[in-house]
């Protein structure tokens, strides 16, 4: 990027954020930590069973060395650096090294397919990529071979399979580090110089919207946004200094950057990185963090894991669990309703803490968690209550990438089941006339990357339009209903938000995904994706033999099981919005097929297209359908397979339940 352009950006940012101190940036935080708390552990990574530790001094030294090295590759202010891979210390170091050079890390999800990466690279004219291992290197080489010519440097962390046979432009981070160290030694003032280069007005990271609708948009977040967001949250008591944090969520997701880099630098977190994604749960237990963030799905999975574990457990343990857990859940429900437990109940709960709750939290690795959070989408009431009943002060965040995901959260004292909480200090919130939630604060971004139209749509008069529908309660707590854009109407003019219903369905352990249909139709119907783990286990318990996902999904017993779940949800919906028919799909929604996003949000258009014959059958009264299923193989080829799918009515069951 041209220096004038950068300078221009800087000036405009200064004008927008007069309160920001120029040298108050992330690298400064790192330098301060290394100076004041140099011996403290900043980062741990589990490597071959043991935890490698990095102190703040190590941290700084590596970031500086990498920055010095990166500079020799020609990376400079305004350059975008692609980051692909699972959480690795070297990648974090590399990102901050880029930030030091006023370049912008642009993380991508490691399982993103090459086309998407290529379009991201093209949009951001990426010249340098920071990747985890050979797999990602190969992916990038493929993109380069496919015609993307600007990729000059591929820096990789894990040298396995690459050592001594690096492809053109590929360089081990270890070698870059050595190069940078040598340079730092030669130039004694370089480190100090590097540290003073960034500005609070620089973009610290370039994140991306999920792309639920249309192509992903780049969301640049500046040092200042991140710092003010973190400070607001910490001021409200949502983070404390020195938290032990587990960095296991994707690096491309806003939360990881905010927690693992933003908050970690500001509040000196001890960040822990699991050995692999598959070992994350085990490693979580070894670390026992004090701060834990999980998506509602992750919490729900955890609950499923517990329930499956308990159902397999021995008699006494199972009985104790089934006594204490409902007791505690009921206690928690009443507590949220404002009724305090009696002394006897408190004593009994303490007994349960020793016998069940404590051991459970220990098994999950949540024994030390004081700040368990969730965000992203609505959380099932039973899941929420369960973990709160366990004694975890589980709370929900509400926010978007655009506002560093730090916007609204449930306060520790007054939590109710249906509200998202109160805005952070420093965050203004209002509801627009058409019911949209608007926010304004210093941690809201300054505009999309190279997308003035979208920016103008989202940022109006300093207010950010979240696109969510909601309202404020009398006590100032926010209730989020769903996407404004998602509000649809049935043919009869009933207004509903499919996601809202889907989430209710997904609160069932047996349902992994659901897609609610009904827009411009006579009634609501559902495509159901069963949860293979939970239903599979249920099938084993109940002696239902099955061979595959597709087979299991079509078992009459499974249909009966799902029917009950659907009927249960119908019970809390207005009668006109009852789900009348559903189909159990023969496969899961697959991000590779574009049916869901990487964060598993539905892409309704794709689904409508893929499953059109099934959807028709849901509305033409047929009891079954032969479906030509499209299959994508891992090679990228696709084929078709004939599937026989049953279509079920819920109404009868519902009537039966009412009788």
């Amino acid at each position, binding site marked *: 990027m041209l220096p004038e352009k950068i300078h221009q950006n800087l000036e405009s940012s200064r004008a927008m954020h007069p309160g920001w101190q120029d040298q108050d940036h992330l690298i400064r935080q790192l330098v301060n930590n290394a100076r004041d708390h140099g011996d403290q552990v900043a980062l741990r990574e589990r490597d071959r069973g043991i935890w490698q*530790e990095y102190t703040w001094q190590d941290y700084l030294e590596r970031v500086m060395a990498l920055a010095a090295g990166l500079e020799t590759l020609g990376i400079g202010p305004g350059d975008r650096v692609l980051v692909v891979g699972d959480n690795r210390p070297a990648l974090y170091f590399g990102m901050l090294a880029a930030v030091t050079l006023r370049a912008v890390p642009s993380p991508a999800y490691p399982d993103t397919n090459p086309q998407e990466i290529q379009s991201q690279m093209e949009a951001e004219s990426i010249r340098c990529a920071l990747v985890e291992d050979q797999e990602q290197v190969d992916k990038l080489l493929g993109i380069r071979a496919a015609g993307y010519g600007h990729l000059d440097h591929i820096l990789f962390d894990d040298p396995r399979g690459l050592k001594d046979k690096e492809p053109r432009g590929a360089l081990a981070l270890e070698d870059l580090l050595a190069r940078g160290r040598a340079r730092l030694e030669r130039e004694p003032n370089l480190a100090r110089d590097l540290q003073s280069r960034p500005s609070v007005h620089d973009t610290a990271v370039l994140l991306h919207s999920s792309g639920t609708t249309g192509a992903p948009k780049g969301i640049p977040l500046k040092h200042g946004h991140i710092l003010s967001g973190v400070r607001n949250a910490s001021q409200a008591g949502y983070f404390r200094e020195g938290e032990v944090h587990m960095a296991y969520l994707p690096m491309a997701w806003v939360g990881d950057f905010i927690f693992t880099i933003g908050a970690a630098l500001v509040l000196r977190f001890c960040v822990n990185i699991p050995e692999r994604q598959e070992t994350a749960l085990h490693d979580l237990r070894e670390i026992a963090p004090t701060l834990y963030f999980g998506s509602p799905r992750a919490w729900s999975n955890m609950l499923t894991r517990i329930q499956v*574990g*308990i159902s397999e457990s021995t008699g006494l*343990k199972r009985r104790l669990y089934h006594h204490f857990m409902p007791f505690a859940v009921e206690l928690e429900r009443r507590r949220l309703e404002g009724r305090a437990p009696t002394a006897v109940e408190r004593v009994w709960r303490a007994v349960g803490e020793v016998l069940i709750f404590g*051991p459970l939290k220990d*098994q999950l690795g949540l024994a030390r968690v004081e700040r368990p959070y969730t965000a992203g989408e609505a959380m099932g009431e039973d899941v929420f209550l369960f973990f709160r009943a366990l004694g975890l002060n589980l709370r929900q965040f509400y926010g978007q990438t655009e506002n560093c995901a730090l916007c609204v959260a449930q306060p520790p004292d007054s939590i109710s089941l249906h509200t998202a909480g109160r805005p952070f200090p420093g965050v203004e919130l209002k509801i627009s006339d058409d019911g949209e939630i608007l926010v304004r604060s210093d941690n809201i971004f300054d505009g999309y990357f190279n997308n003035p139209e979208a920016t103008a749509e989202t940022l109006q008069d300093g207010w950010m339009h979240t696109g969510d529908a909601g309202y404020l309660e009398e006590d100032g707590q926010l209730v989020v209903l769903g996407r404004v854009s998602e509000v649809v109407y049935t043919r009869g003019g009933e207004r509903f938000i499919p996601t809202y219903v889907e989430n209710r369905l997904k609160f069932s352990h047996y349902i992994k995904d659901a897609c609610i249909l009904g827009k411009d139709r006579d009634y609501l119907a559902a495509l159901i994706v069963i949860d293979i783990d939970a239903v599979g286990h249920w099938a084993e318990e109940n002696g239902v033999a099955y061979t595959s996902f597709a087979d299991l999904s079509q078992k009459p017993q499974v249909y009966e099981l799902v029917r009950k779940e659907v009927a249960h949800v119908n019970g809390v919906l207005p009668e006109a919005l009852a789900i009348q028919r559903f189909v159990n799909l023969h496969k899961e929604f697959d991000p590779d097929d574009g049916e869901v996003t990487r964060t598993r949000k539905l892409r309704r258009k794709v689904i409508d297209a893929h499953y059109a014959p099934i959807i028709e059958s849901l509305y033409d009264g047929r009891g079954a359908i032969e479906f030509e299923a499209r299959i994508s193989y891992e090679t990228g080829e696709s084929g078709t397979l004939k599937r026989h799918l049953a279509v079920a009515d819920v109404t009868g069951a519902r009537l039966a339940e009412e009788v």
Partner: protein
Amino acid sequence: MFYRLSGIHHTRYESARALWPVTADRRIVQGLLLLAVAAPFLLSDLYLTSYMLPWLIWTAAALSLTLLMGVAGQLHFGFAAVMAIGAYTSIHLTRAGVPFELALLGAGLMAALIGCLFGAAALRVKGLYLVMATLAMQYLVEWTIINVPAISGGAQATLSTPDVTFLFIPLQSDGALYYTALLWTVVVTLLIMNIKRSSFGRALVAVRDKDFAASVIGVNPLKYKLLAFFASSFLGGVTGAVLAFCYYQAVTPEQFGFNVSIQLVAMVLVGGLGSVIGAYLGAGFVLLLPIVLTNLLAFVAQFDLIPISFNLLSHIPLMVYGALIIGVILFEPLGLAKIYDNIRKYFLVWPFRHTQS
């Protein structure tokens, strides 16, 4: 339920291989050690001298044997003879005026040297044949002791242990004897635990699992078999001396007969081959079970509830003992240690049945 594993992480392999990485286990060990140290103040002299003391010493013996049988896989049905060598050596040395501490060392060395002769058979054969060979050597050692009055002590064939001091403390009071035995057992325990996780221990395990294969990976089976016999016999010899000085206070050949060898093997097997905790449990089982049964039956008999002859009554412990050994081997071939392990796991994975991660 008692176990809390979260937050336990290791930054070095050494700490990951620590003896008791889990806090609850460490607490249990500390608690037991504390109880063991406090035993003279908690237990009556009967339980101290007739239960705790012999139990500890036999545990040390079982540990010495389990190093050979469990870790190195070399069967030994003549370990009582090895202990006898230690006992007689130590007595003759102290009688000749050698300080007790050195006599213990001498006992260990002498037992280790002769124990290596037992090991010579192991260089040639294994399994059942080794059982028979060591058994035969047990007879030879026993015969030699009995038939050489200079060893066994003349016509009475009894040698009383002379008064000695250990680390400047006279071995007179029950307490002094007990603490000496405790110290030795703790030393042996720590030693075996550390051997098991050392390269030496792993070499022994390699030899145990398949000696040919071990030689392929560069572990010389001959050398390690002999080393195993040496180490185990050394410990066994010292234990024999401790047994003589701290418990019997006199040695006769009968104290180290063939049946004692069998009992030692039973301790190791019933406890669980190669397991340290198993040695404690096995020694307790084999040593104390007949005593407890005898006392229990005598207690029951006084009520005259069961009209059985005194002769049968006195044989019941023998039958029960045999039946229980059969039972343990049939139903839990990994021994009492496995049962303990199952109980521990039951609480370790609480409230689940299996580990979750």
